[in-house]
């Protein structure tokens, strides 16, 4: 359970990167945070593991105020994977890279070996075990960075732009990994620009604009709201756009529902 209450944060340039943000995330939820560049998405998720502490308001993670604990303690509960894998990778081999966090948290060697093994298989990295992470492709690096956090099994998983540079196969794989983790009771938060990914796989969406949350609710209800999409400069899902352009009575982001709606419309015109 995460509770964010009236959080305001400024980097000291006179602009509030976060401006009174309230958000509640229940256990084992799967949600996306979307919004224009500079909306405050990354600033918000940096509050979840205490990298940033709120200047006003408070952030409670699993009953603990982030102001009263350290990043290293919070990081065990909240696994935060950043956008750019190049900011993370440093070890000689993929295997060592994966065991970095596990070693930091002081896990016993057998446990480390077991978890590294799991991550190598889950993210299809077994062949790269002894390769240097720097010789991998962009998409592979991204997977190593995801694996290096997910391997220590945090209760809350936060991914900043996990789909950039991934082809559609990898995206689907990522979606199923996330769904799997979510089914096991993990809370998963995805920060993204990839609105189609959200429309296809994420049930709840939080829309941010200029440091504020401007909409929050079930994905299929939020992403068809033209006002919200425009206010946050998000390119709407193609199906929502299609619904608007065709003037459908009940716009949707679900292919089957749209098809049904169009069928009915055509039938009506034939009569």
């Amino acid at each position: 359970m995460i509770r964010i209450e009236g959080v305001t944060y400024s980097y000291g340039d006179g602009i509030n990167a976060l401006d009174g943000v309230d958000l509640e995330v229940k256990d084992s939820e799967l949600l996306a945070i979307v919004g224009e560049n500079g909306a405050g998405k990354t600033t918000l998720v940096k509050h979840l593991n205490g990298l940033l502490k709120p200047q006003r308001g408070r952030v409670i993670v699993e009953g603990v105020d982030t102001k009263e604990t350290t990043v290293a303690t919070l990081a065990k509960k909240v696994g935060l994977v950043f956008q750019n894998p190049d900011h993370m990778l440093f070890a000689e081999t993929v295997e060592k890279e994966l065991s970095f966090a596990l070693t930091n948290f002081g896990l016993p060697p057998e446990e480390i070996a077991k978890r590294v093994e799991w991550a190598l298989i889950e993210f299809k990295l077994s062949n790269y075990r002894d390769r240097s992470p720097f010789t991998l492709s962009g998409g592979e690096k991204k997977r190593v960075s995801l694996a290096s956090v997910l391997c220590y099994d945090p209760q809350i998983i936060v991914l900043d732009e996990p789909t950039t540079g991934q082809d559609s196969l990898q995206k689907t794989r990522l979606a199923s990994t996330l769904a799997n983790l979510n089914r096991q009771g993990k809370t998963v938060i995805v920060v993204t620009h990839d609105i189609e990914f959200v429309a296809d796989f994420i049930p709840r969406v939080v829309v941010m604009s200029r440091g504020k949350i401007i909409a929050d609710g079930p994905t299929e209800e939020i992403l068809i709201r033209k006002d919200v999409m425009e206010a946050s400069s998000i390119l709407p899902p193609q199906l929502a756009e299609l619904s608007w352009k065709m003037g459908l009575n009940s716009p949707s982001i679900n292919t089957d529902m749209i098809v049904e709606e169009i069928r009915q419309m055509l039938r009506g015109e034939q009569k």
Partner: protein
Amino acid sequence: MKVFKAFEYRRGSTILHRIDPRSKLVYLILFTSLTVYFTKPLALLIIFLSFLPMVHVGKISTRWSQSLRGSLFFIVFIFVFNFVPTAYYSGNLFDAAISAIAMSLRFLNLISVFSIFFLTTSPEDLTQSMVQLKIPYDYALTFNMAMRFVPTLSREAQYIMDAQRSRGLEMERGNFVSRIRNYIPVLIPLIISSFRRAELVADAMESRAFGASKKRTSLYVLKMGRGDLLFVSAAIGSALVLFAVNLLL
């Protein structure tokens, strides 16, 4: 990392910002020389005080004081490492303290004067003035780019530290040796990305035909005005006064 920020140019319109970089260079060289030449703490303190009006006129007091706060660690370091050995070998605590204070003040002055210079001089103007001082363009550009990438590098270091701390890295943990080792997960990505960026910049420059023509012309040419004459004379004048004061002290 705040130390770097203190040298980052921000646009401004004060007199100090508008003065030709070459005039400010004269000021920089004069006051750097005085700082290095002076040995009496009082004389060095007077130099330091002479920076205050400059900072005020340039409206850079917040960033300048940031630079001082950021360098506090080094100042303490310099003080301790000058005081302890001198006191140990000479046995005279007072003399040791005086020379350690002088050393610390000297460092403080150098930070201040360079901070004043870089905070009020745009990198473009600086390059242009170097070119007009007949420094080959390639060198001027290299210097400019080195300066230009300092804030980028410090931002990048911050990102990397955030990422590694999220993976449970505690920079402050352990004894001296393990603390240094804690920096490895930060330094390696930082160095690698710097090399990669350097290659990208080189590619970008070449695709924009860098070095295609032997003779470069400039859109803007720097000109020394009456203000510059005044500024340079004032700088030389106050340097002479300080020199005399130092002799009298």
